[in-house]
């Protein structure tokens, strides 16, 4: 059987979009890798999407341009896509198919792994609880990131998501612990400039030597984007669970990834789901995002920050929508705040960190954290509601209390959310700042905070 699998075929019967079809083949496994030699001698890699007794459909990762039907040679490798892994990959840069592009030699493998991995047994998972201090108040205070979490940034075209992601990567730490960390960066269809920005940021902060970069840029083949994140995540799993490192994985841009999936689905004439995306896009995204986490009894962890741009800032678009259903929360950027010149323009109301609850409180951040967060949310939401009221009918009808809320709302955006891109605030700084703002409101308004914390931290007038 194995002999059959190494059979080489010459000529293909059909090429359409990113796909090619071979007839007269035998014993081709689903998902196995094909090496395609073009008439000009170039070798490309493809993967079997469908196989029957005599026919195989192959998607070609670097595109089908220049393929012909007569001379193209296809060799089936008899195994699924694999990647060579080694700790020496740290500090290296690869293309979207894991070929070195930094001038260095090939990776000498410590091991070779299937890039699709296997699902983690839910009973082997450890619930993530170590909060990460990113130094960014809108995240640390309101939506704390936890090691092993997958927390995407929902952004829009032209918003500073890259700046924010690089700030998180630079500042992220677990307080009081100096442990092995690494960054794995997967670029899918982002521009050269964006990728250069990340590399420069990593260089300046000294993170580059602890980073592995996989770059599929905007002018690289779209279909390759479907494997780039898997190469990155397989590397991350190796570094985390074999080498005991805490790995931060930045995946950008998930929207481009989904578009590549849609392209393949369209070429296969599949029944489209919403907005032409295939019906299995939830499962497919889950197979990426669920590779974040911790495993009981192993040291390392994988924390994911996928970045996606919402087409037309629409959070109900299938890509952000399905992502939000899989990930453990989301950081949403707002064009309004960005226009007001506030960085980071985090729109805290639709943001969420589902793992925050277990990562904050006594012994982790501070005992008052949960209640302060709830109060900030409730007060800010109220302030925003009042502001929209003012926009309609002016300030006349407002009570003194209403005005206090509006003032709170403005100070919240300007003092709490706004910070410099190199400003690194501790959890304490963030919470103290929060109390400064909450002290603008009368004590009786702090219904979500217990009297114990109020008497300890409240500095408003009413107390005096």
């Amino acid at each position, binding site marked *: *059987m194995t002999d059959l*699998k190494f059979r080489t075929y010459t000529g293909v019967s059909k090429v359409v979009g990113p796909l090619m079809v071979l007839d007269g083949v*035998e*014993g081709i*496994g*689903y*998902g*196995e890798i094909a090496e395609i030699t073009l008439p000009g001698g170039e070798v490309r890699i493809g993967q079997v*999407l*469908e*196989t*029957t*007794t005599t026919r195989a459909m192959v998607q070609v990762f670097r595109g089908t341009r220049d393929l012909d039907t007569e001379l193209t040679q296809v060799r089936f490798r008899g195994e*699924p896509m694999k990647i060579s892994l080694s700790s020496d990959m740290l500090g290296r840069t690869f293309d979207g198919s894991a070929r070195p592009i930094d001038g260095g030699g090939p990776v000498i493998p410590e091991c070779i792994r299937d890039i699709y991995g*296997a*699902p*983690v*047994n*839910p*009973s*082997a*998972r*450890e*619930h993530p609880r170590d909060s990460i201090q990113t130094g960014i108040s809108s995240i640390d205070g309101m939506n704390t990131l936890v090691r*092993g979490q997958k927390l995407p940034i929902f952004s829009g075209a032209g918003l500073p998501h890259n700046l924010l992601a690089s700030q998180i990567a630079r500042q992220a730490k677990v307080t009081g612990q100096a442990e092995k960390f690494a960054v794995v960066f997967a670029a899918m269809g982002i521009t050269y400039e964006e990728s250069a920005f990340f590399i420069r940021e990593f260089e300046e902060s000294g993170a580059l030597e602890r980073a592995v970069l996989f770059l599929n840029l905007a002018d690289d083949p779209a279909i390759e984007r479907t494997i780039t994140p898997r190469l990155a995540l397989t590397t991350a799993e190796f570094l985390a669970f074999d080498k005991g490192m805490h790995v931060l994985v930045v995946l950008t841009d998930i929207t481009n990834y989904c578009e590549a999936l849609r392209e393949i689905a369209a070429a296969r004439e*599949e*029944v489209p789901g*919403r907005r032409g995306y*295939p*019906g*299995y896009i*939830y*499962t497919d995204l*889950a*197979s990426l995002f*669920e*590779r*974040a*986490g911790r*495993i009981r009894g*192993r040291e390392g962890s994988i924390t994911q920050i996928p970045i996606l741009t919402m087409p037309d800032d629409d*959070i*109900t*678009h*299938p890509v952000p*929508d399905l992502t939000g259903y*899989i990930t*453990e*929360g*989301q950081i949403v950027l707002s064009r309004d705040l960005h226009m007001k010149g506030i960085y980071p323009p985090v729109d805290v*109301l*639709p943001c*969420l960190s*589902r793992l925050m609850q277990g990562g904050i409180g006594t012994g982790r951040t501070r005992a008052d954290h949960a209640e302060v*967060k709830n109060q900030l949310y409730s007060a800010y939401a109220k302030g925003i509601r009042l502001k929209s*009221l003012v926009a309609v009918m002016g300030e*006349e009808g407002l*009570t003194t209390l209403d005005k206090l809320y509006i003032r709170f709302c403005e100070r919240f955006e300007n003092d709490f959310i706004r910070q410099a891109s190199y400003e690194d605030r501790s959890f304490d700084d963030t919470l103290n700042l929060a109390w400064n703002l909450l002290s603008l409101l009368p004590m009786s308004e702090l*219904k979500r905070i*217990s009297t114990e914390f109020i008497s300890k931290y409240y500095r408003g007038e009413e107390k005096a």
Partner: protein
Amino acid sequence: MEKKEKNDETEMSEEKNGVIIRVTGPVIEAEGMAGSRMYESVRVGIDGLIGEIIILEGDRATIQVYEETVGVTPGEPVVRTFLPLSVELGPGLVGTMYDGIQRPLQEILKKTGDMIERGSSAPALDRTKRYMFYPLTKAGDMVREGDRIGCVRESVSVNHYILVPPGVTGTLQSIAKKGEYVITDTIAVLDTGNEKKNLTMIQRWPVRDPRPVLERLDPIEPLMTGQRIIDTLFPLARGGTAAIPGPFGSGKTVVQQQLAKWVNADIIVYIGCGERGNEMADVLEQFPTLKDPRTGHSLSSRMVLIANTSNMPVAAREASVYTGITIAEYYRDMGYHVALMADSTSRWAEAMREISGRLEEMPGEEGYPAYLSSRLADFYERAGRVSLIGSGGHEGSISVIGAVSPPGGDFSEPVTQNTLRIVKVFWALDADLAYQRHFPAINWLMSYSLYSKTAGIWWEEHIGPDFIRMKQEMMEILQRENELEEIIRLVGPETLPESDRLLLLKAEIIRESYLMQYAFDEYDTFTGPEKQYRMLKAIFKFFEQAEHAIDTGIQVSELRGLPLIESFARMGTSSPEEEETLFNSIERNSETIRNMRAGL
């Protein structure tokens, strides 16, 4: 049990095998399958992956495979099992976590390590554990299907009755004595007239068939959840069905977990269908440490967990809800009240869509298969309060709570709409409430419960006489608040008369002190019916006094300034010891409003 005897895989001979001719994702086609039946379970390829026949055409079968199919090659064999996809039922279910096709995940972990490798398998029930068996019948007794012939202590909280399997009736020739047995031991021999049947503690049942019942009954008793907005305003009944749709981040999973923790059912079946691995890890870590308020033991001692996370194979996700409901039915047949949570049924529907897409079926709405609504109906119809087959006239129930994850939070999508046509309770989760961190984010204007009336009668009989009145008034206040807010948006708040301002204050107290409930607070997480009633009384006492005060010319702004207002928000979080003092002080302070003088 004819099905069971054929289970033995050694019986299967080579010529009964088919050959794979096509592989596309989780769907494969095989030929040489003549004689196989729809929904028969098969083993696919050299790794023996578990699959199920979903289309038959001549000697060709289309099979959905419950495991990853990468590497599966045309020409590999398909081995028949002659059995429909079934679950194993018996002592040992409780406290175990299964995947969608009832593989015990903790056992698989021991066998294959942290990742679930393909083709891994382990028996669903522990064959080595010894249970103390107590016979409930004696030799010579006539027994029929559903009768309790014995009992084992499955966990500290659950007495597991050993039942005569459906379809079997006869005379007991022998029954095991009280003593320790493993589940495969023969514990009874039954003479059915035609044959002698050896009964063990294990039964098998095909997951897609409902287990038989004698009669279906109307749900009458409310299922208490300790969640105030649910129990008071939108109650669920024992044997009822509820749906919780909501966009992501609106707290579906937290509500589901709260219900799993606090609902007053005997057995909890929790299905994590296509959800997050970390969430399941949380459930696994948290639930065993949670003290069950009713039994005093850990919650996991009466819970069965099914975890088919989003990255686990999609076909097994499709099967997971059936696996769960079949286990629920089995415990119901013992006379228990079972509550089943499915989080999320949308993932299940999407799994159907994905498989349907691979089959190139003609799609219905939004790509979902045309049979979506009938599948949903079939599933929810397996809930209910029933009188059981078997002697003794026992009763049991299954209450089903399904989370729905509508894309973009849009309730007009097919899964939500088809679910709403079936379920009797609708808890609509609202993103805006969630953004304000008002949890549970159940929108009181959109939600409804068709069990309100029967539940109201129960409350009045068991808890307190004026419950229905207070509840109705509460709903009216909330409705009216919504209308007033429209007016305020148009003309501003200054034009409102004092009576309307009072109404806004009332609504605020109801929303922030009663409907809002903090799941992570030690005491607020659960409010029993007595305390709910006490809270309502305290609130309404204030409302009455406040109306009097307004009539005598006192301004609502003066009432707002009272320290009393603040204490409403502390009712939920107060401990049982503080409670009484707090309620008394609220009522005492409400009395004093009457004595306020305008302008003072």
